């Protein structure tokens, strides 16, 4: 179907080995109106290659700060983050972020948004970039909308485009910051299935931040509970259920109940 030199596109679409992450004694505090807030207090965490880890906690418990530090968008006050053994000092396309708010660029159409990260990758021809972008739009099921403007998309479609844009440069780590929080339940359920499939197909290390316990139990290999003030990891649950998981299954509900109970004992009321 595509007439191009064999090699570059297939090479570009090849699976890259996912990174392992090591977060070592990371602390971070902010100045706020009511004084200094310790957002993260000597947090340590290891994430294996290709693992799907969910960080759960109430709003303001520092989980988003943790994600930003892994992304390299914020610097920790002390401690460090290692990706495949190398310290993270700045943002880079090895670790791409999917934000909660729509971070798609309104001046580009859907295709232009997916191309954005690819255009910053050297050693690709224009045709290669286009083919790669098409592949990822197909993967998220939006091939038909490549010429659409961003404001014409529904919330769920926007997050699919965000996902395609984050996947396109073929990162080793995907960082997701409550990506489905603003969507309706039906759209969310569909995306849970899709994200599991895509994770299986593209094999990334994923750190997923959410305040929705069921969502965390459905997606994560491990669920980590964060407590606020100061932000710490309090408890850890390994979810040993076969995939793909159904958000409505009874086994999953049992996990969610356990995790919710633990959250409540931390004095946090969990939503969902």
């Amino acid at each position: 179907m595509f007439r191009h030199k064999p090699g570059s596109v297939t090479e570009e679409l090849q699976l890259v080995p996912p990174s392992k992450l090591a977060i070592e004694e990371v602390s971070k505090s902010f100045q706020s109106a009511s004084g200094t807030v310790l957002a993260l207090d000597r947090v340590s965490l290891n994430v294996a290659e290709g693992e799907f880890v969910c960080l759960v906690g109430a709003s303001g418990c520092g989980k988003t700060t943790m994600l930003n530090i892994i992304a390299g968008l914020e610097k920790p006050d002390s401690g460090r983050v290692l990706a495949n053994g190398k310290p993270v000092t700045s943002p880079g396309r090895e670790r791409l972020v999917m934000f909660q708010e729509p971070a798609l660029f309104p001046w580009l159409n859907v295709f232009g948004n997916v191309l954005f990260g690819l255009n910053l990758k050297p050693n690709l021809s224009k045709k290669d970039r286009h083919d790669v972008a098409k592949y990822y739009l197909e993967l998220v099921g939006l091939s038909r909308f490549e010429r659409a403007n961003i404001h014409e998309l529904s919330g769920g479609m926007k997050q699919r485009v965000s996902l395609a844009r984050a996947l396109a440069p073929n990162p080793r780590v995907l960082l997701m910051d409550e990506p489905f929080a603003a969507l309706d339940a039906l759209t969310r359920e569909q995306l849970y299935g899709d994200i599991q499939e895509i994770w299986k197909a593209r094999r990334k290390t994923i750190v997923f931040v959410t305040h929705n316990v069921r969502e965390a139990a459905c997606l994560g290999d491990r669920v980590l509970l964060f407590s606020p003030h100061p932000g710490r990891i309090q408890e850890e649950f390994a979810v040993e259920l076969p995939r793909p998981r159904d958000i409505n299954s009874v086994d999953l509900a049992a996990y969610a109940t356990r995790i919710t109970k633990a959250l409540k004992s931390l004095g946090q009321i969990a939503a969902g």
Partner: protein
Amino acid sequence: MKRFFLATVFFAVLLLLWDAAFRARIWSPVLLPSPWQVASYLKNAAVDGTLFKATVITMRRLLIGYFIGLFVGLPLGLLTARWKLFGDTIGTMALGLQTLPSVCWVPLALLWFGQTEAAMLFVVVMGTLWSVVIAAETGVRNVPPIYRRAALTMGSKRLHMWFKVILPAALPFIVSGMKQGWAFAWRSLMAAEIFVTILTGFGLGQLLHYGRELSAMDQVIAIMLVIVVIGLLADKIFFSPIEKFLHRRWGTSQA
């Protein structure tokens, strides 16, 4: 089609009212000429070339001044948004000078440059520049930080960040700033042409001025009409398509 029809009716009624006022002889015909007198002045001025020459001279001054204002103003605006030092200095100065009506530059320009083209240009540039600086600065400051963060993670930096993220994101502000700059340039040029009578060329403003000197009300009204029409055309031909594109892309309200 219906909209076009209604608009035509509106302007026709306006003309009829004007004509009726003229026929009623409430005011002296010297003060209020009939629409036909104005039309005949326009026809004569168009035939003998005065109108065309004056328009060309005015447009040349306007475009040169406007583009100088843009080319200096845009980068200055970006600098003031990017660095505190520029914001505190040039930003504050722009804010202050923008409040100064552009006709206030005329006495200074006359004393510095005399009755020259340079005086004219100076007034136009001063009228345009500061509003462009402020529009560009506001535009950049209003870019949602999430765009920068998203672009950073994808490896965008420095020039790429400016040209592919910050400038496009600020485009709606920059375009409305360009439009405002155009309006200001137009106003300042008319002020300059009315006050600065120079021999290097008669612009529309000067025709207006001599209309007054000669008490030729048909000329005064006709030239005012031409000035209005040029302003309208610039908007419809140049700015409207850009704004339509922005509305379509951004999904902002389509008026």
